[in-house]
Structure formats: C-alpha cells, structure tokens
C-alpha cells in the first residue's frame, strides 16, 4: 500500500472583473478523476443563473448530455431529468446572480470520474449549493456525457451566455489513484 500525494491543482483562475465563460484546455491525462470547483456568481439580471460545463468543446453546445437532478430549495424539493432531446445544458447546477444580495457567491463542484477512460462514457457527479438569506438551493445531480473519448478540455458556460462576476474562481484538480 504505497501512499503517494495526490489531489493536485492543475490550474486556477479568479476573475478580477466580469469575464466570459472559461476554458481549461490541454488537460493532462495522468490523473484518475478531475474535480472542478467553482466559487462563483453570474451577472444575469435575476437571483440565480445556471452554470453549465461541457467536455471537449469550446462552445456552449453539445448534443451528448443527459442529467438526473435532485433539488431542494428549503421550501420544496424536486426531481427532474434532462435528456439529449431537451435544450442542452451540459453538466449543470446554478449559482447566485446579479439580483442576489451583493457579495454572495455559490459553490459548484463537478467530479468527472475516470475522465481519461476510453471504455466508459463520462459520469459527472455535481454538487451545487448557495444560500441567499431566505432562499437558496441545494443540488445533487448526476450527468452523463455519452462519449468514450478521453476528456482533454472543459468549458464552463452559463445560462444565456452571461458573464461571471468579478471574484469568481475556477479551479481544476486532478486526483491520482495508486
């Protein structure tokens, strides 16, 4: 049982001013899982907006995604699916947006399991959470990208293509199994 250090930061960026969607490219193939952690806020003029993650594309469009959702808001819970026949949201959850209380950011965490596998389609476990002092949301979602191609890039889009607010941080980690 040789133990080696792992959970390695691959890349990180923090927006100093509102910025467009972000892309991690040339992702090394030497890890086992990827973990994308977003501590963010969007500029869409409502209280929340979607964060959408896509694989191996630089545009916010792909036809190979489906997702199952469990959502709680504090006042109600809901279950839903997204299929490849619905508008394509990639792997998604939500974050606070422009009309939410200032300085409130949300957490979105995407676990891309066995991302370099060429025998598995890509399962992504997604946790999303934020609280807006009277409202909020908790998401436990699982998405599938129906491709056995290894993941080499991630694109983080948003609902309606709106910018992410200043202070939003995107960090990509690689986890290495023994």
């Amino acid at each position, binding site marked *: 049982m040789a133990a080696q*250090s792992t959970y390695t930061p691959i890349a990180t960026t923090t927006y100093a001013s509102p910025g467009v969607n972000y892309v991690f490219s040339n992702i090394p193939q030497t890890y086992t899982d990827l973990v994308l952690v977003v501590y963010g806020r969007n500029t869409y003029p409502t209280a929340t907006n979607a964060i959408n993650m896509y694989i191996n594309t630089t545009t916010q469009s792909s036809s190979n995604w*489906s997702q199952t959702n469990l959502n709680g808001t504090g006042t109600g819970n809901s279950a839903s699916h997204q*299929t490849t026949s619905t508008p394509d949201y990639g792997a998604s959850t939500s974050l606070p947006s422009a009309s939410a209380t200032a300085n409130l950011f949300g957490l979105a965490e995407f*676990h891309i399991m066995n991302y370099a596998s060429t025998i598995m389609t890509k399962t992504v476990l997604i946790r999303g959470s934020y609280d807006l002092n009277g409202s909020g949301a908790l998401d436990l979602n699982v998405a599938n990208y129906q491709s056995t191609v290894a993941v080499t890039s991630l694109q983080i889009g948003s609902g309606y293509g709106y910018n992410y607010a200043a202070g939003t941080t995107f960090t990509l980690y690689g986890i290495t199994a023994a």
Partner: protein
Amino acid sequence: MSVSYYPLFTQTVGAAGASTITFNNIPQGYQDLKIEYSLRSNAASSTADGNNFVVNGLANIYSWTQVYSTGAGLGGNNLANSTSYLGVVPAATGTANIFSVGTLEIPNYTGGTYKQGFVNSVSENNTVGATAHLISNLIKTTSPITSLSLVCGNGSFVQYSTVTIYARAAQYSTALPVSPSNPLVVDQAGFAAVSFTPSSSDNATTYAVTDNNSVTTYGASSPIIAPVTLGSATTYTVKAINSLGSASAAINPSVTSSNSFASIATVTLASAASPIVFTNIPQNYTHLQLRTSLRNTNSGATESFSVIILNGDAGANYSTHSVFSNGASITSFNAVSATSMYGPEAPNDGRTASIFAGGIVDLLDYSNTLKYKTSKVFTGFDDNGFGYVFMHSGTWYSFAPVTAIQINSGSTFKAGSTIALYGIA
C-alpha cells in the same frame, strides 16, 4: 544483563473508565506478543463476563475453547465464529479493589497463518465461586497483527485497570545493536516514509523512528512509515533496537508536509467480481474517501446500489438511510439493525453500454475508538431519461478502527469497474 521480553506499551485507565483499551502501530520485528492485563469492570454485578480482544479491528473472526474452574467444579465449553474470550473480571458488587490478572499470549503474531491466542486468567474474590480460565482462542486472520484492543464485555473497565504489551524476541541479544545509516525521509501526504540502511550484523531485533514530537513508530525493516504533522517541520531519528538497548542514526533533515490527500490502494476489475475488499488500511489518516466507477453484470435494465461492510462485520450492527431522485420523484428509505450500509450505485448491464455510475464515499474519523463510524455516500448515474442520484448515510455501531472495507455488488461488478481508496490527513 539480557532480558527476553521487551515492554512496548502500557495503558492505565483513567477516572472516566474505558470500554475498550486499544494499542495501534504494534512493531513487527519480534517473534511473539505477550499481553499482561489487570482489569475490573463497573458493571452492576459481582463479575463481568464477555470480555474479549480484537486484532486489527476485525470482528467475529474468532473461535475459542476453554477450561474453567469455579473452585466448586470444573467446566468447559467452546464457541465458534464469535468474539474472542478473555474470561470474567471482577465487577462493581464484587469485593472491592480486586482486579483480574490475566495473560494473553499470541505467538508468531506477524506470520501469514491464522494465529492462536492463549489466555490464562484468574478472578479471585475470596469465595468458592472465584473463576480461573484457560482459554485457547483461534484468530482467523493471516495478516500480521498491527493493532490490539481489549474490550469490556459488560460495562467499562474501571480506573487503574492496566494492560501492558510485551514483545518477545526469537533469541537473546548478546551484543548492543549497531546504528543504521543513510536516513532519508520522503513526504507521503500526511505521513513520511523514513528509509535507512541497516548495518551488517547489526544485532537488531527491530527498528524504530522517533520524531521531534517524541512519537515513535516501529518497523521490521526500511522504510518505516511514520506520522507527520502537516505544516510543521518534522525530523526523525532512526534506531536499531534489541533487548540490550538501541543505537541511533544521525537525525535526518526535516520534512514539512502540506499534502493532505493520499492514494492508498485501487482495485480495477479485469473480470467480473464481487465483493471488492480493501484490507490493512493504514491508521495514519483522519478520514477515508472511496471514489467509485461501477457497473453490474446483471442483465436487467434497472440498477442496484452496492452495500458496505466494515472490518468484515456482517452482524446486524448498522443503520442506514437514503434519499434519492429518479428524475420523476424524490424518495427516502432506511434500514435499521441492518447487516451493512448503503453504498455506491451501479447500473445493470441492460443499460446503455459503457455507462458506469460515479460514487464518492466519505468515512470520517475512521480510526477513532470513541465514536461509531459514519459514512456519507454521493452516487448516481444518468442514462438519457433514466437515472438515479442518491445521498446515503450509514452508521456502523462499533468503536473499532476501520481496517477493512468491503463493497458488495447487488449482483457482480462488471469488468472495468474501479474503486480507489484515499486517505485524508
């Protein structure tokens, strides 16, 4: 003067009492272990029965046969597939200040075969009914014994109960040990691998490293894996030890570890199999995490989640709850007095090819001997209109450190399924 027994550890119970007395990191460089114990329980009776020991955190791998005498007669019995047995100890309504005296002897404790644990103990109380035991315990593990717990079968061990572990070397030492050389330390995420070169004919029966916080870790050979305090400079002194003394190498340069997440072991199935088992889990970390990608061989078009068993304990010692979404509704369910905890999800083989469910299992404070063990599981898969996402919780009602994790499929895990075990410092 040479001695044949080398005292390793002693624990004396404090005023609060203790239901379990545990020794971890037992050095592996000796031949036999001999445990001397002096115990008394606070149970509201004259004696307390059911006292036992646990090795490596493993439950129900024991059987035993005993001969006992009460002074009024001789008896005997045995029990298969059970806990071990240490005999009775005096308890609260028995004569004051009397403690049992017992010895547990485990020969060849590092060997690759099943072990024997021989007990002789007495619980004298100045009555005819005082009991003496001779007990033969079979310990059904082929792993070296690295930890040992003495468990009070009824109530808790009272203050001043004492247990000492002695190690017995295969032969007397006739000369002082010679110090090792070339100490080298490698950061390994939460602990350090301290390697060294033993001197030829060094007379050593075991080796040890002691850090600058006076924490000593024993080992039979190089390297020795020792704990490290995250974020602070740690130095280690390597020692060669025998029954006559020890000889230290030069102190190695310090290491400052900032890693906190380490890969312990990974299983990737080349062919279908179940269960997937991790054993001999190091006790150096704070938490454990399993990360899973699983699919079943069951040809159905549905799914099933796996179940988790800790330390081989298949008794009704778990409770577990779940909440899940299938995309149409949210449902919760539970099982109490269960024989396992809910584990990571796996689609059956009738689902779209190449879809493996993802899972993250967190086991917190897994080596704590004062807490039951709690699991948290986030798992699911999606198949384009059919899918499940689960959050499970589970409790294993045991104070034993987690040394083994078993994940059982609802059928059999398909080839390509993989589970990686990580330690979090």
